[in-house]
């Protein structure tokens, strides 16, 4: 019974914590510009992330180590430092975008410009991490994030052409504006296969003290959680396709976001949208802040845990504090959160290989995963994901130039 409850809670927190500004923006832009055609990119990204998240959880449960721990131990400090610099910069920019998402929600709610909310939002993120435990952050905020299910309800209520929705799940070639189409596809993949997501998942497994008995639970949580989460992204795409595309609204400004829900729910739709974006981005901001601190502490062998007092792990606490301050500067200087989001999703895609290649080795290392090594099927999937990652890395920059807004 206890395990069933854990599974249920794990799925719920995965669903509630899945959506963030990157997945909202890329899915909405995809729907607004290419109707239901790009659903396959969300499906493909979702499938990749299911495998990577499951393997991250399995690795942590069996070895008692996180993926960044093992990357430093197996690949050495030079590889780790390269990964750290690249991922640190990308995650900081993504964090700026997520914090910007919180500030957009606050601007929509109050009318006060998003830049003014930069410091207060950063302070809230910092305060919850400073005072809260891992459970509060993971479960509390993610449970609140279930409000994003309003997108699923909305997508049902707009009565899309369901056969076309199913058809959109299969890859297709663009009928117009090819470079823009592929750019958005790449951005969706970058929003789905975010390295911070599966690194954070392995850190979370250690925080929750998972062991071998959690292997089946992990499989269920990662599969169901990421699947349902992807369905919410697809719901956002459907809403944009049905409500924005016919009106020629391209979603290049965050003021247009309420148009996703107000036609269905009226004034309630506005507040649902504000709450959804605010809570989803708040949760994501906390996760990314913690992940940057986890990556630093794990790579350099410091004491770390969200369940200890800050003074017991001073360097870890200092790292997440400095991180959130730096991210708030990105918001305060007034960089458009929507444009930053699209840019960061694309560069996340470009930097995927450095994060994913180690899985090929670590998930077959008996000194870590013992008998729970990858079979030939999982290894083939990881190899395929590595191939997709390299392809994304190669095409992202040219597409950013020719297809980015």
């Amino acid at each position, binding site marked *: 019974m206890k395990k069933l409850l854990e599974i249920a809670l794990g799925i719920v927190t995965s669903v509630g914590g899945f959506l963030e500004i990157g997945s909202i923006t890329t899915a909405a832009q995809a729907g607004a510009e290419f109707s239901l055609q790009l659903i396959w990119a969300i499906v493909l990204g979702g499938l990749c992330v299911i495998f990577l998240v499951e393997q991250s959880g399995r690795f942590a449960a069996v*070895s008692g180590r996180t993926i960044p721990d093992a990357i430093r131990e197996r690949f050495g400090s030079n590889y780790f430092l390269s990964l750290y610099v690249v991922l640190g910069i990308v995650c900081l920019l993504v964090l700026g975008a997520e914090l910007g998402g919180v500030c957009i929600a606050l601007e929509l709610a109050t009318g006060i410009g998003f830049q003014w909310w930069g410091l207060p939002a950063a302070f809230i993120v910092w305060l919850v991490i*400073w005072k809260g435990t891992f459970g509060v952050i993971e479960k509390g905020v993610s449970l609140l994030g279930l409000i994003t299910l309003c997108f699923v309800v909305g997508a049902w209520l707009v009565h899309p052409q369901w056969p076309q929705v199913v058809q959109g799940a299969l890859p297709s070639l663009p009928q117009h504006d090819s470079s823009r189409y592929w750019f958005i596809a790449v951005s969706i993949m970058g929003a789905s296969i975010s390295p911070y997501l599966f690194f954070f998942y392995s850190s979370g497994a250690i925080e929750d003290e998972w062991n071998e008995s959690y292997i089946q639970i992990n499989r269920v949580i990662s599969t169901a959680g990421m699947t349902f989460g992807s369905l919410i992204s697809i719901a956002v795409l459907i809403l944009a396709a049905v409500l924005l595309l016919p009106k020629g609204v391209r979603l290049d400004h965050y003021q247009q976001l309420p148009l996703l829900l107000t036609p269905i729910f009226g004034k309630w739709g506005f507040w649902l949208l504000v709450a959804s974006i605010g809570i989803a981005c708040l949760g994501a901001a906390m996760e990314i802040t913690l992940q940057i601190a986890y990556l630093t502490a794990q790579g350099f*062998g*410091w004491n770390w845990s969200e369940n200890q007092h800050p003074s017991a792990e001073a360097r870890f*606490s200092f790292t997440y504090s400095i991180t959130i301050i730096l991210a708030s500067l990105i918001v305060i200087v007034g960089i458009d959160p929507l444009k930053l989001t699209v840019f960061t999703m694309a560069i996340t895609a470009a930097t995927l290989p450095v994060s994913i290649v180690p899985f090929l080795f670590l998930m077959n290392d008996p000194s870590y995963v013992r008998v729970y090594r990858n079979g030939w099927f999982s290894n083939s999937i990881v190899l395929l994901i590595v191939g997709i990652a390299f392809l994304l890395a190669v095409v992202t920059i040219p597409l950013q130039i020719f297809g980015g807004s």
Partner: protein
Amino acid sequence: MDLIRDCLDKKVIDKDDRPMGRVDGIIIEIDGDGPPRVAWIELGVSTIAGRFSLRLGRLVKRLSQHLPDKGEPYRIPWNKLRIGLNEVEANLEAEKTPALEWELWFRKKIIGRIPGA
């Protein structure tokens, strides 16, 4: 035992399971005609930087002159160590060694001064 696979970059914990850092370097000593002896492990930012490039290591050491640990890496003699599976156990108390000098400095000067720490 494989020095690089089993020892280098592994987490170092003290006798109370407290993290001390990671094995950033290993020093072997050649003395006369005998086999090289594994003498110390090294912990320190300048050691990691030196692996990336010697010039970077020297720069980090020079810039660290005014910092608490003066940029000097901390060496632990081999006879104080036990090599476990993917970690190294040092027969020491972490807070009594220079390994946690930075941790204690951050605790005292910054984090400890914030309410709720």
